[in-house]
């Protein structure tokens, strides 16, 4: 069905077309960007079971431009379309037109990644999705070195992914394997191929000690882009573990589960502890991401079906609340000109809507029952425990306790306490900003109450 191809191509083409608008246009590009993102959302729902394929290579291995959602990637793609729509709607950066165009290209390339049913196409979009973020960091970032760190780290991951893909194709004879139940690879080469994939995924997630590109990137990117990157792009690695690691090389994920769990656990605790002492609000959320993604890595490494279902819920939940948090912090920074926890305080009195949005997102992040984060965490912990791993559950519980501490600290330092004199407290959320965050918060509540559709893997 051609609609599937359109889902990938439309945002990229629309992004290119937006460059044809007048240079200092804001409203049209913003509106068009939001409309395109909403359209991809609708198309995704319409084309849930559809596939589209055309032959690409037949030597040295078979490859095809094969697109279509898998049960896991469907939800991540929906999340991506939703986050993009929300983030683009309130973009207020310099050169808005170019930025919106980049956002759409970012969406398109990531949709290509999550819809790819062929490893080679997956690898292609894996590298391609770095480019818009690189340009985002070059054009709008706070420090040029950040762009480098982001690009070099992730491209190094992309290269091992490429080598692993080539080796997989040569040995298996085809890369048209994502979402196919019968494609397993075993043999002398398979552990190395798995290592190549795993390195790329771990850099992307990111997982300690490969995470050092992440805090400056998340801190430096403009908030609309960072909300999409942290919500969805970081999930590419986790999706890779589920759709490629567990599906194509399950023996090796199981065999090397322990080191993966240890890395996940270290990230979980390390991220949480560092988040506790950061004074940059964006970095608090960045390190909290590191911590939360560590939990998902533990779930994936356990290989347990329940844990995996929980991982999918938590992937969506984390996407929703981290996008909401970054967007709200972005609004805050636009108003106050700073995002330092030391300089801000007492904003909640004057800005109830801003405080409310931050509150819901933060509560979801710390795992309050009734919101999506809790469901994911609970199911993951049950699954991991059932798989016979006790110590990761204990580590995760410690991490969740620390999560409450840093999220409450974030909220309190920004919203409660005495008002700080020299920081101007400007207006509350506008109706448009509220409308942009509302879908994310609503989705957090809906998934928190009724996560059943996400659990049907």
């Amino acid at each position: 069905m051609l609609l599937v191809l359109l889902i990938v191509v439309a945002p990229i083409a629309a992004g290119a077309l937006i460059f044809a608008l007048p240079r200092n246009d804001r409203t049209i590009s913003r509106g068009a960007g939001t409309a395109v993102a909403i359209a991809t959302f609708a198309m995704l729902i319409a084309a849930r079971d559809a596939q589209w394929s055309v032959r690409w290579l037949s030597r040295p291995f078979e490859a095809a431009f094969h697109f279509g959602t898998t049960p896991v990637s469907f939800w991540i793609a929906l999340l991506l379309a939703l986050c993009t729509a929300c983030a683009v709607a309130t973009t207020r950066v310099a050169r808005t037109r170019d930025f919106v165009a980049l956002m759409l290209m970012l969406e398109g390339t990531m949709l290509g990644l999550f819809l790819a049913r062929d490893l080679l196409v997956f690898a292609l979009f894996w590298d391609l999705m770095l480019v818009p973020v690189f340009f985002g960091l070059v054009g709008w970032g706070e420090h040029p070195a950040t762009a480098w760190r982001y690009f070099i780290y992730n491209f190094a991951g992309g290269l091992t992914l490429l080598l692993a893909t080539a080796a997989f194709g040569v040995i298996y004879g085809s890369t048209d394997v994502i979402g196919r139940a019968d494609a397993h690879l075993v043999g002398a080469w398979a552990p190395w191929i798995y290592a190549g994939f795993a390195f790329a995924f771990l850099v992307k997630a990111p997982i300690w000690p490969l995470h050092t590109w992440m805090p400056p990137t998340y801190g430096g990117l403009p908030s609309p882009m960072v909300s999409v990157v942290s919500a969805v792009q970081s999930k590419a690695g986790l999706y890779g573990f589920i759709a490629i690691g567990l599906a194509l090389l399950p023996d090796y994920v199981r065999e090397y589960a322990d080191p993966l769990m240890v890395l996940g656990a270290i990230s979980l605790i390390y991220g949480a502890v560092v988040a506790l002492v950061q004074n940059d609000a964006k970095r608090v959320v960045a390190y909290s991401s590191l911590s939360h993604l560590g939990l998902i890595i533990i779930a994936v490494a356990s290989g347990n079906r329940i844990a995996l279902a929980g991982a999918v819920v938590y992937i969506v939940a984390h996407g929703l609340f981290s996008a909401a948090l970054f967007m709200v912090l972005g609004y805050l920074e636009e108003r106050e000109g700073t995002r330092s926890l030391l300089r801000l305080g007492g904003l909640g009195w004057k800005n109830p809507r801003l405080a409310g949005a931050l509150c819901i997102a933060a509560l979801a992040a710390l795992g309050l029952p009734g919101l999506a984060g809790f469901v994911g965490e609970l199911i993951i912990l049950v699954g991991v425990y059932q798989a016979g791993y006790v110590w990761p559950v204990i580590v995760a519980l410690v991490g969740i306790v620390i999560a409450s501490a840093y999220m409450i600290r974030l909220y309190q330092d920004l919203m409660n306490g005495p008002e700080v004199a020299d920081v101007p407290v400007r207006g509350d959320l506008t109706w448009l900003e509220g409308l942009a965050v509302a879908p994310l918060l609503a989705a957090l509540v809906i998934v928190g109450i009724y996560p059943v559709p996400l659990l049907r893997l």
Partner: protein
Amino acid sequence: MTLPFTGADWSAILPVSAIAVTALAVLIADLFSGRNDQRYVSIAIALLGTIVGGILAARQFGQHHDAFFGGYVVGGFTTVFQEIIVIATLGSLVLYGALGPAQRIAGMTAIMLWSACGAMLMAAAANLMMIFLGLELLSLGLYALCGAVDRRASRESALKYLILSSTATGFLIFGSALLFGATGSIRLADFVNPVLAMNPLFWLGAGMFLIGLVFKLSLVPFHTWTPDVFQGAPLPVTAFMSVATKAGALAVFARFIYAALPADAVQGLLLPVWIVAGISMIAGNVGMLAQHDLKRLLGYSGVAQIGYILVALAGGTPLGLRYALYYLAAYAFMNLGAFAVAAAISGDGEEGADLENYRGLARRRPWLAAAMTVFLLALAGLPPTAGFLGKILILASSVSAGYLWLAALLIIGTAISLYAYAKVIRLMYETSEGARQALEPFVPLAWASAAICAVLVVAMTFYPLTPSNVLPLVR
């Protein structure tokens, strides 16, 4: 006296002859053209003649004929290499549209056409004499072209190239003599004799022959001339050297290793070459890091890119040769495109090779910056460009041939190269105050060339390589 050649022999070299005659036509037309249109008359005739040569070469595709007693082979292999050389010549000729002193354009285009003839002869050469003839025709033209503008750097470049290249040619001709001594034949096809694998004279000859070729391919440790010569030579000549010379040398190299070595000697003789290719991928990319001049940068980049192409050949499989050709074609478009952008931002008398000229280009000329980004991404092997697909094909062929260490070196080299390419991209998209404000002039020929190359570099990625589409190239 009657020549022992048939009509088929003469028609075999028709594409080369057409281009050689075009060069004469350029010179004659220049005598009659006025001062103002001199430049465009020369370029138009040269382009037309080269296109005719390309069409004539394309018509030979699928034929097979050993012309001139097996010295000049007509076949799919020859055609593809000749087409790449034709494309390189076209892409370099258009750059003269904005660069170089007008009164010398005719001479320069004519010499470039003759050099192209030399490269095309190399692509078809199947005996040692023809290889040498092609190589000398190519090189002699380039010595003149390198020094064709009144700049100190240009003269230095010509002298450096003359001395070093002559030395390499010495190796090649000495190696040829030894090969002839060992085999009693100048035909490459006669070297396959397994008895030769025992003959030390053959080993010595083949080794020296390969050293000569490796110099022309500018692989480590014979690469140090490349950045200097590239920097000094006029931009169109650099573009030509970076693609056509390498295509010609690569054709000889591929024919030599595929069709002219006894099976027992292949491993022992070629292992050093693969090691050299591996080192080149690292050294070329490391060398790029510190460059502030686009021509030097692309010179080092070429060192590494040829290394990648050799990795595809390492398996010695026909499939590997096809991937090498795919990558070579892609490389031709990336490099020519990058040089076209460089020509487009050049002003009168100064060539836009200094990387400072690219600062903030995206603000002034967004389309040029976008095209340049495509070329640099392609050189780095990032999607959505042919460089990405080419690299994965090379990786696949080297993995299946068991050269995993080459694949690993390729990966490491690519990771290093990324920094150098991304540095240029970042410069173009930077929004700093120091950037120059004046708008670069609109140069139609260079812009068109850059646009065509950019489209092709992207389109080649999505071209499905099914068996009927992958050219049945090698015999």
